């Protein structure tokens, strides 16, 4: 294929998207990094320049004050810890619910499979915001769930469901469930079922067949699904804003409040950098490493076939 396109063509095909994404995705992060070392100022834009001219020479004015402030005010550490806790538990619940769903879809007949897949995809194509909004009507004190519980006589006073940890978990699991089911389905659908039959012939019981054959093979799907749920959930803004507690903010909301309410752009940038360094970067690197390992395994597995 290398000779299929002229060198100039190759440069264009790869160069145009690289140029666009460098300008609008990579460089902006460098600006965030730069700003996180700046000082807030009552001006437009509200931050001090990083370089100050002294006798005609630009002198960098690096401030670590934003980072020391993040460390000294417990608000930030608490918000980050709460966000990680919410995201981790939501990911586990998504996995426990999504895995059997994906499994059942992957093992159903082809016609039924496409209908079921469509049913999982449909909420994903409708608005995220409106689906979160739907839960307000269900969970409020005079909402559908409380009305049903009251009518059945199961409770005598409406339960406080909205603006609790419970409603945040519900909202995140609900919004991100399709992101867990789809990669798991893509993985489970490719499994070689003759392995299971062979194991059954050799006397392995269903539980053993699952834990020894199906589960190890689905690790890449579990990793992909968990990644697609966990990282965005840590920085989730819409769900905690509409359904969440008012006394405990998540880190995405803290960043947004620092930016919009307090107009403290340097602190907001420092929060973003901390999230990137502590969460996003390690997980992405881990995933990359794992993918390289998997790719090499696949290559090794294919070699005998190619030789025969």
């Amino acid at each position: 294929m290398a000779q299929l396109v002229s060198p100039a063509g190759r440069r264009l095909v790869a160069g145009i998207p690289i140029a666009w994404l460098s300008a609008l995705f990579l460089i902006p992060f460098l600006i965030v990094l730069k700003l996180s070392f700046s000082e807030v100022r009552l001006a437009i834009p509200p931050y001090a320049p990083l370089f100050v001219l002294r006798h005609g020479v630009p002198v960098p004015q690096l401030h670590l004050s934003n980072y020391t402030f993040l460390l000294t005010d417990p608000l930030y550490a608490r918000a980050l810890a709460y966000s990680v806790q919410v995201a981790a538990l939501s990911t586990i619940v998504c996995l426990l619910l999504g895995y059997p769903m994906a499994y059942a879809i992957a093992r159903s007949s082809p016609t039924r499979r496409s209908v079921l897949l469509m049913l999982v995809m449909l909420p994903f194509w409708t608005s995220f915001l409106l689906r979160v909004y739907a839960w307000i009507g269900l969970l409020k004190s005079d909402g559908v769930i409380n009305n049903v519980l009251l009518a059945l006589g199961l409770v005598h006073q409406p339960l406080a469901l909205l603006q609790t940890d419970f409603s945040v978990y519900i909202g995140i699991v609900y919004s991100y469930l399709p992101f867990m089911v789809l990669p798991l389905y893509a993985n489970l659908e490719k499994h070689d079922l003759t392995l299971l039959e062979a194991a059954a012939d050799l006397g392995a019981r269903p539980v053993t067949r699952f834990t020894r054959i199906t589960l190890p093979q689905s690790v890449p799907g579990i990793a992909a699904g968990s990644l697609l749920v966990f990282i965005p959930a840590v920085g989730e803004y819409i769900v905690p804003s509409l359904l969440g507690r008012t006394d405990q903010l998540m880190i995405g909301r803290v960043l947004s409040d620092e930016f919009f309410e307090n107009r403290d752009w340097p602190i907001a940038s420092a929060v973003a950098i901390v999230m990137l360094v502590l969460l996003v970067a390690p997980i992405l690197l881990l995933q990359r490493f794992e993918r390289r390992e998997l790719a090499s395994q696949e290559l090794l597995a294919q070699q005998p076939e190619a030789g025969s």
Partner: protein
Amino acid sequence: MRSAGYFSRTMLVVGLLFLYAPILSLIVFSFNNSRLVTVWDAAHSPTLKWYGVLLTNGQILEAAWLSIRIALIAATAASVLGTLAGMALARLGAFRGRGLLLGMTTAPIVMPEVITGLALLLLYVALEQAIGWPHGTGPVTIALAHITFCIAYVTVVVQSRLVGFDESLEEAAMDLGASPATVFRRITLPLIAPAILAGWMLAFTLSWDDLVITQFVAGPGSSTLPMVVFSKVRFGVSPDVNALATLMVLLVSVGMVVSAIFMHYRERRRERDVQRAAAANA
């Protein structure tokens, strides 16, 4: 085919009920007469009153029109750029910058939106200081931001389609003397067209629905539909939003059914062609 056990089938039913119960309740209460969205006013319902309220709300209509225009531009530009990126990753082998491109088309998918939004706005502000453009934020800066985060999704879809079929068709055409442009137009493009279309629709939906990044890069003058909806529902429920949600669910369902039928017939036709070709060769 080994069928799934009772447990996983039960969980599938539970999961689908969980996914659809809130959507159904949105739809049901969009026909409710009462302003209290969750109390069914049996005497005067069902009613289409909230659909009337929705479709005469100038602010919502204006925001929807802005969102449609931005989504059309973002999806189209992202499809072009994402197709180029997908082709580069799937077909160019090892080239300088491949790792960079792979990273920049993977990271946006999982990046928390507050970070992407903040980064883009700071870029616009720095640019304005340096070269005087963009002058403030508005529809143009929203569209540029949407193009950027949509590219990654188109790339993934196109790349996986290209990896799925081998290069021998393209190589055969080259051997028969077709120029690279002809190979692309006659072979590659028809093969990846369904993926580009799927990527375009995904990008359109993501742009149309985006709130968080948009809030950062929108500026005070321009409000997209999600921004208007968010400010309405932030302090409680609002029945005309239920009507809006119902219309959107209806539209998406019709779109999905139509595209499923289309794909089904395409597949059937392809199978018939393959059979006919086999018969002609025999």
